[in-house]
C-alpha cells in the first residue's frame, strides 16, 4: 500500500524552544538572512513557532503553535503553479521541483498558511555554517520558491532501505528533523495509511483539530490540544 505521510503536533507539549526551527535549517540547507533583511520579511523558516497571547499584562498566557507546510490533500498552491513546480507526489506530499520553478510566487499567495518562502537573493550562510550543508539536499538558487518537504530526503532513504529488505517503513523508524529535535516529543510523524501508526491514531484523537480547516485545503497535520469542553476528561 502507498504511504501517506502525516504529522501530529501536540501544542500542549510545545515549549516554544524553536529547536525544530534550528534543526530544520540545518537539515534542509535553508539560508540565513541578515537582521535587516529579516525585518523586511525575507526570513525563511520552513517551520516557525507562532506565538499567540491571551489576557493582559501581567496575567498573560502564551500559546505556541509550530506551523509548517500542512501538506494539504486539496492544496491550493498546486493548481495555480503554471509550470507544475508545485505538484502532488505519489506519497501525498506537496512536492516542489526547484528546477522547474520560474518564480511567479502564485503558490505563496494561494497558500492559506503562508508557509512558502521565496529566494529573494542567492543563498548565503555566515561562516562557518557554510561548511555544514547537507549533501542530500539541493541548495536553491535565487528566484525559486521553497517550503517544508517533510524531509523528503529522509523519506526516500527510508523507503529505499525498507524496499531492499522487502519490507515497508516501520512506524517510528523515520522522522523529519523537527520531530527528531523536539525535546518534548511534541511532533509525531508517520504513515496515515497505516491504521496502527501513532500518527494515524493521533489524527483521530478528540484533542485533534486542523489549522484553518474550514477553508477546505484538507491539511495532513493534526494539532493536538486540550479543548475547553474536555475539562472533565483526561486525554
Amino acid at each position: 500500500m502507498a504511504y501517506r505521510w502525516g504529522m501530529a503536533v501536540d501544542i500542549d507539549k510545545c515549549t516554544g524552544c524553536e529547536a525544530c526551527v534550528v534543526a530544520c535549517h540545518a537539515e534542509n540547507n535553508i539560508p540565513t538572512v541578515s537582521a535587516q533583511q529579516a525585518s523586511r520579511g525575507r526570513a525563511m523558516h520552513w517551520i516557525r513557532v507562532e506565538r499567540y497571547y491571551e489576557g493582559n499584562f501581567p496575567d498573560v498566557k502564551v500559546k505556541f503553535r509550530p506551523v509548517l507546510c500542512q501538506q494539504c490533500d486539496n492544496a491550493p498552491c498546486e493548481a495555480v503553479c503554471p509550470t507544475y513546480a508545485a505538484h502532488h507526489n505519489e506519497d501525498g506530499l506537496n512536492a516542489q521541483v526547484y528546477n522547474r520553478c520560474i518564480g511567479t510566487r502564485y503558490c505563496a499567495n494561494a497558500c492559506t498558511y503562508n508557509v512558502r518562502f521565496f529566494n529573494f537573493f542567492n543563498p548565503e550562510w555566515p561562516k562557518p555554517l557554510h561548511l555544514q550543508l547537507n549533501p542530500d539536499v539541493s541548495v536553491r538558487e535565487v528566484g525559486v520558491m521553497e517550503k517544508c518537504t517533510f524531509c523528503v530526503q529522509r523519506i526516500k532513504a527510508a523507503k529505499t532501505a525498507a524496499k531492499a529488505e522487502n519490507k515497508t517503513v516501520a512506524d517510528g523508524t523515520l522522522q523529519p528533523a523537527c520531530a527528531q529535535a523536539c525535546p518534548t516529543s511534541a511532533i509525531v510523524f508517520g504513515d496515515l495509511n497505516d491504521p496502527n501508526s501513532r500518527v494515524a491514531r493521533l489524527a483521530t484523537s478528540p484533542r485533534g483539530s486542523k489549522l484553518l480547516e474550514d477553508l477546505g485545503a484538507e491539511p495532513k497535520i493534526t494539532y493536538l490540544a486540550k479543548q475547553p469542553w474536555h475539562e472533565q476528561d483526561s486525554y
Partner: protein
Amino acid sequence: MIRPVMNTTVWFWAIMLAAGTVVACGAGAWAYQLWYGIGVSGKRWPSFWALYLTNFVFWIGISHAGTLISAILRLVNAGWRRPVTRVAEVITVFALMIGAMFPIIHLGRPWLAFWLFPYPSDREIWPNFRSPLAWDFFAINTYLTGSVLFLLLPMIPDFALIRDKATGWRKKVYGSLALGWRGTTKQWNRLESAMQIMAIAILPVAVSVHTIVSFDFSMANVPMWHSTIFGPYFVAGAIFSGIAALIIAMAALRKALHLEQYLLPLHFENLGKLLLLMSILWGYFVFNERLTVWYGNEHHEMAVFWATQRGEYAPFYWTMVICNFVLPIALLSNPYTRNIIGCVVASLGVVVGMWLERFLIVVPSLSYKALPYSWGTYTPTPVELMIMAATFAAMILLYALFAKLVPIIAIWEMKAGDFVQAPRSGVGAGDPHRIAAAAEPSSPGAAS
C-alpha cells in the same frame, strides 16, 4: 494630417530624448534586479505580489481603451468615432505590450519565462492549464494579436496615401507597408468586411482578457480576492481607465499636432459622457463589493476590509474614491465643465484612481491573510518605482514615435465620413463603392 510624417520638429526630438532617458533608467533598474534578484524590490513574505502586478493589471486595463471602444463605436456605426479610432487602437497595442512585460519583470527567474509556452520539449512537460497564469498567457497573446491586426488593417490605405505623396526612402518604406494597396473596389470591400469581422471578434476577446486577469486574483482563496464580482468589476474598471487614457491622449495630440479641426469639443463631450457612465458603473461595483463583505462580516475578510477602509491603506482608498467617483461625476455631469479641460482633469483623476484601485486589490489582501502571525506591510523600493516610471515614459515614447510615423487620424475614414455626412440623393449613404470612390487615395495606374 500627414505633415508630422514628412517633417520632424525639435519638439519631437525633445520628447524622444526625455522619455528615452527615463526608459533607459528603467532598463538599468531591471538589469540591476536581474543581477541581484527580486530582493531589490520591496516584495516580502507575505506580500509576494505587489507593484509589478499592480502595473500589470493597470496597463492591461488601459489597453481596453482602444480596441474595445473603437470596435463598439464601429459596430454601432457612430459617425463621430472616425477621428478617434486610431488614437484609441494605438493605446491598446502599446499598453498591452507594456502590460505584458510586467509578469516577466516580476518573475523570480525571468529567463525561464518561455516555460509558459506550450512547446514540445524533450521532457514532455506542458504548462499547467489549471493555472490562471497559463490562461493569462493565452488570453493576452490572443488579445495582442487581435488588436495589432485591428490597428494595422485600416492603416493600409493611409500607408498607400503616404507612398503616393512621399519621395525617396519614405516612398520605399511606406510602399512596402501598403502591401500593394491600389484602392480598387474589391480591395475596399475586403477591407470593410475584414474590419467588420475583427470588430465583432475583438469584443469577446477584450472582455475575456480582463476577466481572466481578474481570475488571477479571484481564483485564489485569499480574503477579498475570492469574489464572484471580480470579472465584471475588472472589465468595467478597464474600460473606465481606457476611456480616461484615450481622452488624455487625444488632448495631448490635439495640442501637439494641431488637430483642432479634427478632434472637436464634440468628441471630448461624447467620451466625457461615456466616462461619466463608467464612473457610475464603477462606483456601483465598488459599493456592491464593499457592502457584501462588510455585511457578511467574515473575520478574515474584515481584516482586509478595515485595513483599506480606515487602516494603513485608507489614504489610498479614499483618494481612489475621490479620483474615480467624486471628481468625474462632479466635472462631467455638469454641461459647463464637460469641456475639453474638464474631461482631461477628470481623466487624469481616473487614471490615478484606477492605478490605486489595482494597488488596493493586489496588496492589502496579501498583507492580511488568514493567520494573523503572518501579517506584514509592503513598501515599494526605488527599483520598482523606477521601472514603473519607465513604463509610463515608454508609453509616451512609443506613442510619439507612432504619431510621427503614421497619420494618427485615419485619413481614409475621415474622407469616408465626409461622404456619409453629405450623401447624394438616391444613393445609400453607406454604400461601400461610393465610400471607396470618395476616399480612394490613388488612381490604380499610379500605384506600383
